[in-house]
């Protein structure tokens, strides 16, 4: 054999075997991995791009199937339950895995991780490692993204108006009111005080939970804020959620006129064009403001966590001021409960796939999650991947290198670290039927309340009835057990 060919082969072998302890050059020749996720470029685009690299490294063929967001879960469940098994990997919300795991459809990834010296799971932030990835104590999902919602504000606009960043939802409303209608984009067009994706069947049900969690959850993550976790009685028809609904509706006064028909794509287009003063969002706006079509807001969109000075007293059902007793994790009299909305995109492997495909699928997920790839992906807004590893949040270097100025990088990392280190971080539902509870029942009734079809009391009562029906369908005892597995024993 030609010496040069030998050298190339050797170099390739080193590169490929360096992928993980198990993946080597040509190891997956002839292996096809079918992946299902949301349409790109966000998520699907990033997965496809890393997929091409993986193909070159291992010989595997990666096919990324894209379906509308709302159809990911039913399609995966139907495909795997009916034995069709045309999908090997589903990249979806970490919380959705519970229902699939309960039905025995997910591969336990612990043995794969044990053999994998590259993934470095200890570098994954504790919340995502222990709550998002694991189901019943076993790792069933590999995180490729870390999700929770924060409030973003236009630093320049607030400074111009001598306003401080919001700390509470009342502050949020006051600032939104003060800056609404001002020209924030420099083109003479009036800006909006607040921009939130309020379209039905989109992301609205996450934003409402970001507000409600700060009022209803006070005793740490395991307490929860959607249910009394010990009984699965809905914790929705109370003064806390009522206030959250009312606050949410109030923000519409300072939002775009067609806000009720705006999804995340619409609000992102709007804030990137510089027309939003405040917004509720995931980690994406941090790097998104560095993109070419967002030049007007580059290094101006800062992040913060917003809380409440009033919290729900579960015994009386009334709102009470924050104190050491009512909200022990409160900071400066404000109860924070950063909501891990969606829980982050993660990949799960079909338990029924061929063993070789399962190993290849795991290796691919590991490849995306490894620091070498992940620490680059999270700095690019278009990927949809947000920080979830400790190494991504240790220093500002990564972010400054991506184009942020030092001030924004510090602010962005600080807000994320504050949330991730908060013992009162609020978990998204991670029990069977999670999508039905929030994505359907909560979302529909919230939309009807926002449209003025029903009152807040009717909405909360309807949600309570809807949630009770779902719990009854799945079995109350089973749901209590799953809830304990998801967030720990009820407090």
């Amino acid at each position, binding site marked *: 054999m030609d010496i040069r060919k030998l050298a190339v082969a050797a170099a390739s072998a080193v590169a490929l075997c360096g992928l993980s302890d198990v993946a080597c050059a040509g190891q997956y020749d002839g292996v096809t991995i079918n992946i299902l996720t949301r349409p790109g470029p966000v998520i699907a685009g990033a997965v496809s791009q890393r997929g091409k690299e993986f193909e070159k490294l291992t010989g595997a063929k990666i096919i990324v199937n894209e379906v509308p967001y709302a159809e990911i879960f039913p399609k995966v469940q139907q495909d795997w*339950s009916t034995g069709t098994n045309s999908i090997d990997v589903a990249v979806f919300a970490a919380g959705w895995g519970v229902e699939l795991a309960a039905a025995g459809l997910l591969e336990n990834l612990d043995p794969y991780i044990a053999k994998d010296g590259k993934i470095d799971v200890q570098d994954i932030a504790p919340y995502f490692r222990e709550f998002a990835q694991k189901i019943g104590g076993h790792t069933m999902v590999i995180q490729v993204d870390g999700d929770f919602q924060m409030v973003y504000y236009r630093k320049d606009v607030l400074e111009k108006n001598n306003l401080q960043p919001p700390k509470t939802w009342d502050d949020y409303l006051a600032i939104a009111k003060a800056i609404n209608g001002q020209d924030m984009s420099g083109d003479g067009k009036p800006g909006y005080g607040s921009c939130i994706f309020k379209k039905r069947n989109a992301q609205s049900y996450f934003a409402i939970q970001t507000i409600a969690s700060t009022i209803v959850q006070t005793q740490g993550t395991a307490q929860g804020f959607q249910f009394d976790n010990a009984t699965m009685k809905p914790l929705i028809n109370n003064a806390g959620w009522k206030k959250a609904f009312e606050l949410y509706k109030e923000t519409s006064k300072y939002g775009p*006129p067609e806000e009720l028909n705006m999804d995340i794509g619409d609000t992102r287009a709007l804030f990137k064009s510089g027309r939003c003063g405040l917004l509720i969002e995931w980690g994406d706006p941090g790097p998104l403001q560095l993109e070419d079509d967002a030049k007007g807001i580059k290094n101006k969109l800062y992040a913060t966590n917003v809380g409440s000075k009033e919290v729900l007293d579960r015994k009386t059902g009334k709102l009470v001021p924050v104190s050491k007793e009512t909200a022990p994790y409160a900071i400066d009299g404000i109860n924070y409960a950063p909501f891990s909305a969606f829980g982050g995109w993660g990949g799960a492997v079909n338990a029924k796939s061929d063993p070789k495909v399962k190993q290849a699928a795991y290796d691919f997920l590991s490849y995306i999650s490894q620091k070498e790839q992940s620490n680059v992906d999270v700095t690019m807004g278009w990927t949809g991947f947000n920080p979830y590893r400790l190494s991504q949040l240790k220093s500002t270097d990564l972010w400054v290198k991506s184009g942020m100025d030092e001030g924004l990088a510090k602010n962005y990392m600080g807000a994320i670290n504050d949330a991730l280190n908060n013992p009162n971080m609020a978990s998204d539902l991670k029990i069977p039927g999670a999508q039905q509870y929030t994505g359907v029942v909560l979302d529909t009734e919230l939309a009807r309340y926002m449209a003025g*079809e*029903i009152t807040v009391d009717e909405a909360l009562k309807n949600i309570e009835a809807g949630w009770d029906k779902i719990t009854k369908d799945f079995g109350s005892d089973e749901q209590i057990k799953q809830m304990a597995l998801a967030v720990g024993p009820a407090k």
Partner: protein
Amino acid sequence: MSDGTATSQPGISPAGLSQGESWGEWLDRHSRTFFIAPAVTLVLLFAILPTFYTVVFAISHVRFSATGLKFRMVWLENFAAQFTGNQQVHFLGRFTSMSIAGWLFTAVIAGALLWWLYRAVAGGASWVGLAGRLISAAMAMFIALLFAATLLSGNQWGTLLNTLFYVVVGCSIQFVIGLMLAFLCSQPIIGKNFFRVLFFIPLMITPLGVGYAFKMILDVTKGPFQPFWQFVGLGNWAWSTDAWAARWFVILGDSWQWIPFIFIVLLAALENVPKDHVEAAQVDGASSFQIFREITWPQILPVAATVMLIRMIEAFKIVDLPNIMTSGGPGIATESMTLHSLFLWRANNMGDSAAVAYLLLILTVVVCSSFFNYVVVKRLRKARA
């Protein structure tokens, strides 16, 4: 004509073979059955059987497991949930107290239906005919009551009346405009071939494309027409947050797409109206309106009724436009029954989804059969007479 006895073969005969009948004659006699059998088998396999299989979903609670779907029989619970359970408001609407207008409307409709049934009985209608009328009258009364208890009493209506709104109002608008355009293009005007092609194009666009196009055009804050909306003073008008505006815009998009269908069929019908009849009427001094009413309309009526029936059946299934333009919102203001069923399916609530789909099937069959039997057939008989 062949002589059976001359060609009959001794020995084994196929089942049903008449004495003295040959194989060839037997095959010939059953040829229609054999020719149609493949088509019937395909329809049974791919249309009828799935429709019946859906009944199993509609009367079950369905769960997914590693070994497949798990069905738990709940019988009519999924249907009852749409009428009396937690889905009632979504499907039927919200009920408080009935307004005076609502009671009056109900009384008028009830009286009219009773009179209609009385006339059928007095006219010597058959038992089958009477049963059909009773079903149609019951459905009409139910819809009238729903209308009176929701819209006429200041309450929100549900997906059932939304669907009927799209069917009745949308199809009526489309029919009137389609007929007018067809009438214009049937006249000797310059460039009529160009207009024929132009008016036909929207029908060839996918409904998803139409939905996105209208959503973009009607985007008042950041769409390509934002300067226009701003200029005409509608820059802050959020049509998508107003229930009635959103419904009308869905109808606008639907009409833009489907008027060409009515147009092209009615144009063909208009061009088949004998010119000598029209010319004779013109010679007699009839006005254009008289010519249309007395000569043209009776002759195109069979086609007009048929095209309206086909359009109505299609309109009952409307899903793409409200899904793309408003996602069923604001609230559930623009959600059709098909979209309602789709959303339930997306939530893996197969039982409720199948129940809503079946209720839509019942509604479509009763409304369209009633329209055909009591409107179309009646008009056709009159026209023939």
